[in-house]
Structures are given as structure tokens and as C-alpha cells.
């Protein structure tokens, strides 16, 4: 991936994004693709935790970038990452609603080794196995809780958004977001009942 900061001569991501958005609004496809390069990993990580199927998660992310390109004029400033995340979360929630009507085996890609955490040479084998097991158990449990709760937990715990941002993204009240997170964690704890030793200590 190319060094975006160097390419636009900015060090602050906010300023860089603003310049890229402005150029993209004037038809500069390269500028828009620089934004895609900057955020596609984060967006895919976000959507892939919400949508059980990797291919579908890829489609959601691609459609989110299409939608962002179509609606460049509607961007009114602020964080480009939040704007893109909102579009992607909306797409993922749409897909979740559709899947609720047609349930499938959740997270078949858990067997894919590409999901496992990258291991550095400094990791000892025992610790690495523990991390793999913990990640697998947690992903499995996350896949089994309600989609609304999963979305809120991913946005709060993984992506680091606060309650108000999540409420705005998902279109529910702040109290509902809190409730979903609390109940989601309680559900996770029930699902992980026999494997909590992976998480303690």
C-alpha cells in the first residue's frame, strides 16, 4: 500500500481526507481510491464481524464504497471514517435483516486460518494456541448472539465508537445501545460458560 500521507502532503488524517474528498468530488477517481486504500481494511474488519459470510461481507464493503462514491456530494464534513463506517454498517444491517429471514450456518469461515491472529516470531507456541482458542471461542459466541447485540458490541468494543455514535449509526436510542451491549455481553458469557478459563488471567 502506498504512503498516503506522502502522496497528498498531509500528516493529519483529517486534513488528508478532506483534501481527498474535495478532489474526488471534482471527479478525481485516484483521490477516491486513496481513501478506499486507507479504510478498506478497517471497513472489512468491521463488516466481517457483523456479517457471517466473508463473500457477503466483501460485497457489503464494495457496495459501501460504491455508495460513498455516488454520494460524495452528500458528505458534509467530519470524519470520513465515520461516514464510511455508517454506510457500511447500514449495508451490513440490511444484510442481517435479510439473513434473519433466510438463516444459514453462521460464520463458516471460522475454519479459515486467515481469520486467525497473525503470530510474531516472539510468540511462544503455548500462548499462541491459547490466543487461537480464545479467538475462535469468542467469534463463535459472537456469531450466535442476536445481530443487533453483535453490531453494538463490535462497534463499541472493537471499533471503539461511543454510545452516541452507535445510536446515530444504528438509528436507535442511546439507552437501547447500552441495553444491547449489556445483554450481548451477558449472552456471550452464557455461551462461553464452559470456556471462561480462556479469558481469565
Amino acid at each position, binding site marked *: 500500500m502506498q504512503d498516503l500521507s506522502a502522496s497528498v502532503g498531509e500528516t493529519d488524517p483529517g486534513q488528508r481526507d478532506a483534501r481527498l474528498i474535495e478532489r474526488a468530488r471534482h471527479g478525481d477517481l485516484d483521490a477516491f481510491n486513496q481513501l*478506499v486504500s486507507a479504510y478498506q481494511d478497517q471497513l472489512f474488519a468491521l463488516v466481517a464481524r457483523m456479517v457471517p459470510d466473508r463473500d457477503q461481507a466483501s460485497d457489503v464493503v464494495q457496495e459501501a464504497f460504491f455508495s460513498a462514491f*455516488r*454520494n460524495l456530494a452528500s458528505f458534509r464534513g467530519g470524519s470520513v471514517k465515520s461516514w464510511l463506517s455508517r454506510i457500511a454498517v447500514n449495508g451490513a444491517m440490511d444484510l442481517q435483516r435479510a439473513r434473519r429471514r433466510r438463516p444459514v450456518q453462521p460464520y463458516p469461515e471460522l475454519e479459515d486460518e486467515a481469520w486467525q491472529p497473525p503470530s510474531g516470531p516472539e510468540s511462544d507456541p503455548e500462548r499462541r494456541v491459547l490466543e487461537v482458542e480464545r479467538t475462535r471461542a469468542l467469534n463463535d459466541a459472537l456469531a450466535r448472539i442476536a445481530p443487533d447485540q453483535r453490531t453494538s458490541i463490535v462497534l463499541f468494543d472493537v471499533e471503539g465508537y461511543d454510545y452516541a455514535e452507535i445510536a446515530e449509526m444504528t438509528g436507535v436510542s442511546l439507552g437501547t445501545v447500552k441495553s444491547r451491549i*449489556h445483554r450481548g455481553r451477558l449472552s456471550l458469557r452464557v455461551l462461553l460458560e464452559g470456556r471462561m478459563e480462556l479469558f481469565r488471567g
Partner: protein
Amino acid sequence: MAMTANAHAAHDAELVAGLAAGDPSGSARTAAERLVAACPRCAGLRADLVAIAAATAVLPAPVRPRDFRLTPADAARLRSPWRRWAGSLAQPRFAFAQPRFAFAQPLGVALATMGLAGLLVGVLPSLSVSVGSSGAAPAPAAAEGSASNAPDSTPFLKSATDAAGATAAGKQPGPGDASPAASGEPLPAAGSLAPTNPSLAAGLPPEAWPSAAAVRTTAATPDSAAAVTQPSMAAPVPSESAPIVPLGAAPMAGSATATPGFGAADAGPPAASDGSAGSAATAAGASADPATTAQMAPTETAAALQAAGAESNTAASTGPGTALQARQPAAGVGAPGAGSPAANNSNVLPLLSGLLLLAGILLFALRRVAVRTIR
């Protein structure tokens, strides 16, 4: 303090989850902390929830399977004119996709529903007239002198039978009422719908009347005695010498004061001295004739229309109700006289309803397109 498992089951787990997330404040936080301090299982639950949240936060990111950058072909497709137009709906200047315009969609549905209902209300009566007239039976009730008992309830036929009832009640129009008198035809009431039934003029008993369809067909022929179709009745009326009488306020059917207002151009001296038939002629003719209707003050017209509507449900064998009932269909659906206020009213409802329907659909569609576009 040791707590039993049963006691823990009664504890508020969500309160503990809130404490683990650091959410509660004030008294709620105090209660949660007290609960955790008192119940070891609640304390364990809190520790587990904190550990799960920490593990979730460091979940490894899934690896992106492909590059999501747009190709020039993608960009060209996304920049199509239709896409640009749809995208403009979501722009700030249009703002139709913003949450504050969320009311637009339900409002559009409501408007469209009202418009549809108005269209149905405006169109169905005329459909029922055309359908009902083909199968209408004779009006035997008229034989008893009460047209309101006639089986056919369509406005047109009701008016005909009403007027027929008026005539059958023994009220024969005078010779000076209308021009047909000069031609030697059976004397119809001038301008009345009563003469549209020639059986009445011929003095036939009600049982021998033709069907309603036949009555209408006869009335439509140029040779018929239907005064409403005669040019002389539609001619402008010099109003200087004719006092205008509010039809709904006419105290006596067939009074001499009511007749000249209509028939001055036709028959010279006011006749109709023999009762309500003359008044029926005047009332019905006045409604059928735009010129005469135009002579009436708006309030008078309204009063007349109101009286006609009020009296249309009463027995119409004799008296002023006969005259006014004969005029009632003129204010209704199938009335001639396109320029009359009644006719205008019947046209305005479908028009307004159509506009409402159109506006509702437009509002709904715009909001929907805008919302979908911004996503």
C-alpha cells in the same frame, strides 16, 4: 456475606453488566457496587464480563480478501445521469433524505389514501347511475302518490318519479306555463322533469308506465315533452321583471310569484295557479337552466340546494317538497347545466382528489428515492 444460588438468581444481572461497562452513576452505581460486594457470584459475573469485553477489543482483524478500489468502469457506471440525478436528491440543498423529513413518507401515504377515497366517492355515484338506469323498474310507488317509496333510488329516476308523483297527485300545469302548450302537445310542467315521463302526461296509470330506461330514452328525444331539453327553456331569462324567489324558501308550491322568474320568456303571464306542478316546473327548470340558476344569489342557491337535499327523503306527493325534489337531481350527478354551481361541485371533488393522490404518490416516491440514495 455468603449468598445462596437462589438469591443470586434474583439479582439484576444487567445492573452488574452496566457496572462492568462503567455506565451507572449515582444511586444505581451505589446499588450495583453494593450488590457486587454482597454477592460473590455477581462479583464473578462482573469479572467475566470485563474479561470478555477486553478479549473482544483485541480480536484480530479479519483479512481482507480483495482490493475494493474502484475501476474507471465502475466510476463511469456510477456517474450515469440517472445516478447523478438520484444523488442530487440526497444533497444538502434538497435535504429530503434528512431525518426531519421522515414525515414525508407517511404524509404521502395519507394524501394518496385521501385522494383515492375522494376519487371513489366522486366517481362511484355516477357509475351507479349508469348501471342502475339500465335495469330500473317502473316506479309503482308513484301510484300511491309517494315518490320516495319508489324502488329505484338513483337520483335521476328519483327525480323523475318525484315529479311524476307531483303530477299524478292531480296537479295539472296551466296552459301558460310553457311553450309546448302552444304546440298542442300534452301540457308538461315547464322545465320540470315530470314531463319526461310521457305516461304521466297521457294520463296512464302508474302500472302502465314504461320502464325507467324507456322513460329516459323518451325524454332524450327531441320530440318529447321534456321541457329540460327544449331550447326555449334554456334561453336566457330577462330578470328585470321577474322576482327571484329562493327555491328552498318557497312557501307554497306553484305560487304565482315563483313561476314568472323562470317562464317570463316562454309563456307571458304567470300561470300555474292550479298547484304545485307549476312550482315543480319552475324549480326543476331553474336548476336545469344555467341562466336561471345564475340569477339566483349564491345564498339563495345554497339554500335551495340544501332544501332540495333535505326534502329529497320526504314524501313528495304534494306541496313544495314535490317541486324541490324534482329539482334535486339537477344538483346531483347526472344533471345538465354544466355551468351551474352544482355541476361545478361534482367536478371539483374528483379533480381535487386526483391532485391529492398525485401529490401523495410524489411525496412518497421522492422521500423513498432520497433515502435509498443517501444510503
